């Protein structure tokens, strides 16, 4: 059993549209009109939650949306809405009108007879399950919802906080689920061979097929001070999040080379790795000559004089870095110092 709560974490992930009044989709407003507005015009709310870490094949056991009152509107009658999922593997951002996107077959009535804060939806298990059961769903995808007016009573206006209105009180999606059973297959092979000396052998192996959802869903997170490691869903709150790889340092060092030179740094990775190189370089001295800088620059520079030029760059191979410095008629001798880092991660 696992559970998580997801929030709206950036502009473009919630919005509403005055359907009845012919208004345009708005994703920058400070509130979201629930059901219909004070003129009785029907509204549709769109919500998008990112990084929903539910493995494909999981069974959803609970799912609700929660919203917080934005401060105005006491319903005079019953708000009647109907909730749909956006029927996409990885719901695209809501900066364009999402009301015409394909909806899930599953939908749920959500009626509110009185002003409450917060409002909590009925169970949305059927909707979330339909999205997670999509063939293209995978853990970490974005999940979207549309909340449509469903013939609310006249003048029941009630609006709820948007990300732009109060980013700490956005709609929240709480989900509880159970992971699919581990996909494990077992292969047993037995071989017997008889000769005059009668020897026999047997082998037995168990093969676990990866990814194993039970294993893959283990998450390690370390938050910054003051952030809740359980409830925070904002990536920048985390020092470490096992959903995201870190650059691992394979090798680093310093080098010295002449102003025309090639410094070769060997590595053993066998692929093209990420690398960073900083070095001193040459700059105009203002009197027609050049000098070597005291500061260290990214090793990606070019200097052009009236009768000379000089440049530095790095070529990355699957077995080495070539740190190149070339000069044509550049009148300053000397050596250039620098340093480099090579990372384990492969450039794809």
């Amino acid at each position, binding site marked *: 059993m696992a559970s998580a709560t997801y929030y709206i974490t950036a502009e473009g992930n919630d919005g509403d549209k005055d359907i009845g009044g012919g208004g345009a989709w708005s994703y920058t407003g400070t509130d979201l009109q629930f059901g219909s507005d004070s003129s009785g015009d029907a509204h549709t709310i769109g919500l998008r939650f990112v990084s929903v870490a539910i493995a494909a094949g999981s069974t959803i056991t609970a799912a609700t949306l929660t919203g917080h009152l934005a401060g105005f509107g006491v319903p005079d009658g019953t708000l009647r809405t109907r909730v749909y999922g956006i029927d996409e593997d990885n719901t695209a951002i809501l900066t364009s009108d999402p009301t015409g996107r394909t909806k899930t077959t599953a939908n749920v009535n959500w009626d509110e007879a009185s002003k409450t804060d917060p409002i909590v939806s009925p169970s949305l298990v059927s909707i979330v399950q339909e999205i997670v059961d999509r063939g293209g769903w995978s853990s970490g995808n974005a999940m979207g919802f549309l909340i449509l007016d469903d013939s609310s009573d006249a003048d029941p206006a009630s609006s709820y906080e948007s990300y732009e209105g109060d980013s700490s009180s956005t709609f929240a999606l709480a989900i509880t689920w159970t992971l699919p059973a581990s996909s494990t297959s077992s292969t047993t092979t037995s071989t017997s061979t008889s000769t005059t000396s009668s020897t026999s052998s047997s082998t037995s192996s168990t093969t676990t097929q990866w990814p194993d959802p039970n294993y893959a869903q283990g998450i390690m997170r370390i938050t910054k001070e003051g952030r809740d490691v359980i409830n925070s869903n904002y990536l920048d709150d985390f020092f470490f999040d096992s959903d995201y790889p870190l650059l691992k340092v394979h090798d680093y060092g310093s080098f010295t080379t002449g102003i025309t030179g090639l410094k070769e740094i060997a590595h053993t990775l066998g692929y093209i790795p990420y690398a960073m190189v900083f070095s001193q370089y040459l700059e105009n001295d203002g009197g027609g000559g050049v000098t070597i800088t005291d500061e*260290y620059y990214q090793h990606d520079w070019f200097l052009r004089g009236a009768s000379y030029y000089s440049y530095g760059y790095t070529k990355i191979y699957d077995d080495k870095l070539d740190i190149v410095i070339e000069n044509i008629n550049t009148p300053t001798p000397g050596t250039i110092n620098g340093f480099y880092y090579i990372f384990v991660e492969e450039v794809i």
Partner: protein
Amino acid sequence: MSFKIKVSKSGFDVLDATDAKNFIFDSDFNHLKTAGSGSYTQAMDTTDRHTTTIAHGLAYRPLAMAYWRDTANSKWLIASADPEDTVGRHSINASCGLYCDATNIYIRLWNYTGGTTTFEVKYEFFYEGDA
């Protein structure tokens, strides 16, 4: 006996994986640790140059990265070296250079667009550096 902390990527057995690429975290390797980060906007007059100095407090030359854009253009670019000598590489008449010494990070902007504009810069520097 040494202890290790390893977190494998989804689909890899943390006990059996041997390729370092298959680990999200591996205590056998150092990782870049952010020492500081920030962002700012800079109004630029015609043919203006402007250098922002950021004290890093590390007493050595750190690895650093910066990205920038002309707010009239949505394209973010990675800072290179001296903008005066790299201008034109990005097919726009402006550039951003990043360099450092043992005291500061320097971000130098150069506007040669022919008009006034505003640049936006984001930067990050790390505890790892001057090897």
